[in-house]
């Protein structure tokens, strides 16, 4: 052993408080998240999508021969959030499922045997990081649109707070949903497909069949609610901000409960 080795008889493990344990587990999860390339690639993809599309929207507005009155650059944040969220969902999803794919869950549980602490820390760190960075990228997207379109688009602060809060909520609910899918399915490909179905494919596909019940079902999917909160679509009488928020909270909660009991 090294010179720092101590007499094992002198070892006494005093259990730390749950709060301290959670803090340390979160610190480890933060290191775990940012020490793999995939995290940086997905973040770069989200950044390119949001800032790039924001700038394109700004140039588009600047080049419009009939500029619309009263438009704000914050609209860019709303519209770019929908495609960019998939990169953030993939970021958190791989943070969860990669441990099952590589077998890394074995040392993870050896180091933190209390599963509830480990899984809660992983959820909060991955979803929290993706949500915070997503909100910052939404701000960058609006600034890019504002700079590209100046002076056509305005950038009012009150509207900005509202948009950023909405985008942050959509990202938070979406990333926790992705974490829940990851814990439930423990498989990257399966969880990605499930995420795409719930957020993109089924909300668009189900109303196309023309049955009322299928349209009603589509409105209960997290993707429909995210689109409604961000862009006010679909223009349905059955959807409100409150119903969308509740639906988007129920989905990740239900998936997390299923994963926890599995």
């Amino acid at each position: 052993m090294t010179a720092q080795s101590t007499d094992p008889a002198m070892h006494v493990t005093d259990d730390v408080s749950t709060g301290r344990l959670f803090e340390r587990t979160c610190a480890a999860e933060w290191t775990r998240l940012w020490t793999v390339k995939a995290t940086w690639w997905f973040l770069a993809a989200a950044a390119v999508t949001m800032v790039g599309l924001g700038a394109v929207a700004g140039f588009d507005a600047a080049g419009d021969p009939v500029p619309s009155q009263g438009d704000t650059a914050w609209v860019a944040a709303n519209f770019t959030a929908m495609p960019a969220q998939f990169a953030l969902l993939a970021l958190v999803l791989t943070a969860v499922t990669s441990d099952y794919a590589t077998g890394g869950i074995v040392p993870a549980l050896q180091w933190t045997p209390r599963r509830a602490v480990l899984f809660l820390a992983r959820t909060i760190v991955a979803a929290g990081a993706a949500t915070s960075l997503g909100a910052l990228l939404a701000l960058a997207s609006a600034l890019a649109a504002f700079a590209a379109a100046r002076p056509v688009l305005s950038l009012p602060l009150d509207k900005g707070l509202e948009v950023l809060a909405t985008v942050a909520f959509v990202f938070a609910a979406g990333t926790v949903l992705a974490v829940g899918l990851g814990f439930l399915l423990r498989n990257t490909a399966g969880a990605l497909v499930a995420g795409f179905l719930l957020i993109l494919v089924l909300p668009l596909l189900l109303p196309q069949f023309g049955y009322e019940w299928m349209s009603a079902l589509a409105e209960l999917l997290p993707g429909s609610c995210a689109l409604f909160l961000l862009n006010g679509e679909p223009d349905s009488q059955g959807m409100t901000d409150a119903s969308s928020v509740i639906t988007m909270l129920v989905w990740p909660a239900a998936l997390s409960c299923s994963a926890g009991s599995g």
Partner: protein
Amino acid sequence: MIEVRGLTKRYGDVLAVDDLSFDVEPGKVTGFLGPNGAGKSTTMRMMLGLDRPTSGRALVNGRPFATFAEPLPEVGALLDPGSVHPGRTGRNHLHVAARTNGIPERRVEEVIEQVGLGGAARRRIKGYSLGMLQRLGIAAALLADPRVLLFDEPINGLDLDGVRWIRELLRQLADEGRTVLVSSHLMSEMQQTADRLVVIGRGRLISDATTEDILGGLGHRQVRVRSSQPGLLFSQLQEHGLTVQSVDAHELQVEDSTAEEVGNLAHALRIPLHHLSDVEQSLEQAFIELTSNSVEYHGRRAETVQARTEVAP
């Protein structure tokens, strides 16, 4: 100290571990032996709280492993060295481990140097050989200087230098008063390293004794003797009540005797000897005899394959 009491694990119809009870004491290297499928890894996984026992319990320093908030100062373990994220560097892998248990960052550098990974710690794990993965796993196990260490096949993939290093490390850890449990298929290594052996087969305990007792308990002392008059020696030894077999034209094997006894007899009979030695008992032989009825997966013997090949059209 590890205490295993009535540990049982059933997967559907398969009884992987069957009412296993034994202790792993501090200050000793305890070898954990058994044929493939005997239940060694399942037992170690239950010790570490990774599998839930069907019944019974495994206590580490008096507690179930899963009750430790920060277990690394108590238990360091290497189960599957490949169970790591290949995209992370070795150093970052250890940093994650250190942060979970509040271990100072400088300790990471110490264990990297200790296991000889200094030159590779900055590289991503996907570029590591099996031997390097073993060293990384051992570094993680040693990170918090634990009282109890569990190693599942730690010698796999190590070169000769690595094997000597781990042999010395295990000895040193035990001499420092730690509890060391090592599973291995390499009998010669266990014979050299382990003070005590726990042998299991088909999930059941076959033997729990010191290495010396297991080797001595075979009761098969054998002597090899070479002579220019093997026929005469053969008949004389048999007349004196000894069981003798011919090994080749000039060499005999005498059962349940000693070199001293055979040498004295040959001298009295004036039979010249060219070689005389006690056959050293090996743990491999002991293991085969102990587990002969407990092997889960049998391979076809080479000579059988050969014979079938010869008669094939």
